[in-house]
């Protein structure tokens, strides 16, 4: 199976009384809480962490897109991915933004992702989320009633821009372009693999099946809550006559590894409570604009991921306690063997071939994130990696240039050397 290291890039200095004093971590989060000097440090540390994960052998590193969000400092995942493309050599670059309806024209996404694919030698995974209501409808002012139609049209335009051999005109409902001819093109042919991060909508599952895309369920609430969604996904695949290839699916899980369960309990309590308390403090005003969920989804009674988050947050009142976080499986902790055992169960039970791991979460320090990442890579990963590989082909993994054909960044010559 494939193990990917996922960073949300949370702002780590939200005050202790954030839930009491502030109404939301998202959309109208208090500007005064942001210190650019802190962000300077965080961005550099977070990119160090992603680069470290690549160096210790994770199959891929993931970035994503959020706007006006105190737990996601990546309005532009492409900027981070571009920097990572230069500082990593083997890990795949899994860009689980861009929210396609936000870009005008969407050819911008086709261009930037093609650039990342070229710079990285074909290591890009192109993630196309619709985006949460907070990001798209509130922070970016998109009309919830048109969001999905815009998203689908942008997708069509981007895929055509990547794959059609000639300059063409695109006369869409929302986009009219006389000349579409992106330059550069992606290195991977016919195009980079496309992964769709989604909530639990049946239409998204059907679309992924039809287009042969990977469906990623990025839940903050762990495998117990995610189980029902993934079971629904596989039932739908079966109904549509698709095989149970686990590489059709991706799943996100928070993990904390230590030498022992006792040590893990001690180390990961604070960052977990920081995330589930302060970071998920989303105002219910911003989670469910009318039209965001299609009528078919309403009929299927599927609640969107964010609405679920807000409901759960509301249920917790003061935010989830450490005991709840553990009991409900939001975060899996333990010794390397204990974690591997649980994650193997998650992977086989949910039948997911792409496991995305949040090994930095909340206000976790770089040191602890490094410890968690290293222990995982050295002692959990070897137990996990062989899963599924004997039985299934992963048709959704990037196909980079062969290693010898890839160009490594040259160190800048020192003045002395130049002289």
């Amino acid at each position: 199976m494939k193990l990917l290291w996922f960073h949300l890039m949370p702002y780590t200095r939200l005050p202790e009384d954030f839930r009491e004093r502030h109404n939301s971590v998202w959309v109208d989060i208090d500007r005064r809480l942001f210190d650019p000097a802190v962000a300077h440090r965080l961005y550099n540390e977070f990119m160090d962490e992603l680069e470290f994960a690549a160096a210790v052998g994770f199959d891929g590193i993931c970035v994503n897109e959020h706007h006006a969000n105190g737990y996601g400092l990546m309005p532009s995942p492409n900027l981070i991915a571009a920097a990572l493309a230069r500082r990593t050599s083997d890990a795949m670059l899994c860009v689980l933004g861009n929210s396609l309806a936000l870009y005008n024209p969407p050819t911008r996404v086709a261009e930037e992702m093609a650039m990342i694919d070229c710079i990285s030698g074909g290591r890009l995974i192109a993630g196309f989320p619709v985006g949460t209501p907070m990001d798209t409808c509130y922070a970016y002012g998109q009309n919830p009633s048109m969001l999905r139609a815009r998203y689908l049209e942008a997708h069509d335009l981007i895929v055509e821009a990547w794959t059609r051999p000639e300059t063409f005109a695109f006369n869409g409902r929302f986009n009219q372009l006389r000349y579409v001819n992106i330059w550069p093109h992606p290195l991977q042919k016919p195009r980079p693999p496309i992964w769709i991060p989604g909530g639990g909508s049946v239409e998204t599952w059907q679309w992924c099946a039809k287009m042969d895309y990977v469906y990623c369920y990025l839940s903050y609430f762990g495998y117990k809550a995610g189980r029902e969604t993934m079971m629904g996904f596989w039932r739908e695949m079966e109904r549509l006559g698709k095989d149970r290839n686990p590489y059709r699916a991706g799943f996100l899980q928070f993990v904390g590894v230590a030498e022992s369960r006792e040590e893990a309990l001690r180390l990961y309590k604070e960052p977990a409570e920081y995330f589930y308390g302060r970071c998920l403090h989303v105002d219910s005003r911003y989670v469910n604009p009318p039209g965001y969920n299609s009528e078919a989804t309403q009929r299927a009674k599927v609640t969107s991921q964010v609405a679920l988050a807000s409901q759960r947050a509301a249920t917790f009142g003061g935010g989830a306690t450490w005991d709840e976080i553990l009991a409900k499986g939001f975060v899996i902790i333990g010794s390397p063997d204990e974690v591997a055992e649980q994650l193997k169960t998650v992977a086989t039970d949910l039948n997911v071939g792409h496991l995305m791991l949040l090994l930095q979460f909340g206000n976790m320090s770089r040191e602890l994130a490094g410890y968690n990442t290293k222990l995982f890579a050295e002692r959990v990963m070897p137990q996990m990696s062989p899963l599924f590989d004997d039985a299934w082909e992963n048709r959704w993994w990037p196909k980079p240039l062969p290693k010898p054909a890839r160009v490594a960044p040259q160190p800048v010559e020192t003045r002395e050397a130049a002289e």
Partner: protein
Amino acid sequence: MSAPAERQVEVNGLPCRVWEKGSGSPVFYLAGLAGLPRWTPFLDRLAERHRVVAPSIPGFPGATGHDRLDQPLDWVAAVLDLLEGAGLAGGDLIGASIGGALAAEAAAMAPGLVRRLVLIAPFGLYDKSVPPTDLWGQKPGSWPTLLSVRPEAYKELVAAPEGVAEAEWSIIMTRAAETAARLLWPLADTRLARRLHRIRCPTLVLWGAEDKVLAPAYAERFAAGIAGKCTIRIVANAGHLADLDAPGAVAEAVFEALG
């Protein structure tokens, strides 16, 4: 309250419900935010003196097709199709809230269609000193008190009618909210200001004094922009849905304007 007669007109190939009741000179009514989930006491009062015709805007209860309306011109064309199809031809037109914004568009873009216009707290303008309240940035369940000084009356208005399953009704009401959002997102500025001067018919602009969505000060902006003779009436003890909150007072004001 006896039930209105029902017929359909087509807009963009989809049926839209038209309710009708009473006799006398015709008065057309375009409903506000939730559309017209049921016939109202205000319309009953009007029907004592007029033939009241209430066509449903695509997306509001009784009509679908909001998802075909992308541009302002699509909305204007749909509303003209709806009003003409329902038989408005030089008659009087009342529009409330969202229906007010669209009634104003119809009067501006097809001047011969409307004889006299009544706008009840219409959307369409944007004053940055008193911006419209963000209808969709509200805590769940807060619309009744936001829209009406009689929240119980609003809840009754939007409750599932007899014989309609709760689940299906919830989808219909969400669709109505989506329809409003589709036209007004994100700032409720439909750029009506650019067309207001084309309204040349006599117009009554009526506002609930307690409107928490659009400040009554908007009445003056409408009056200043409309070319026809314009009268302003502020109705006491009424919120944004003034004809729901004060059906008697609003009906009296309409009778004064339309006879």
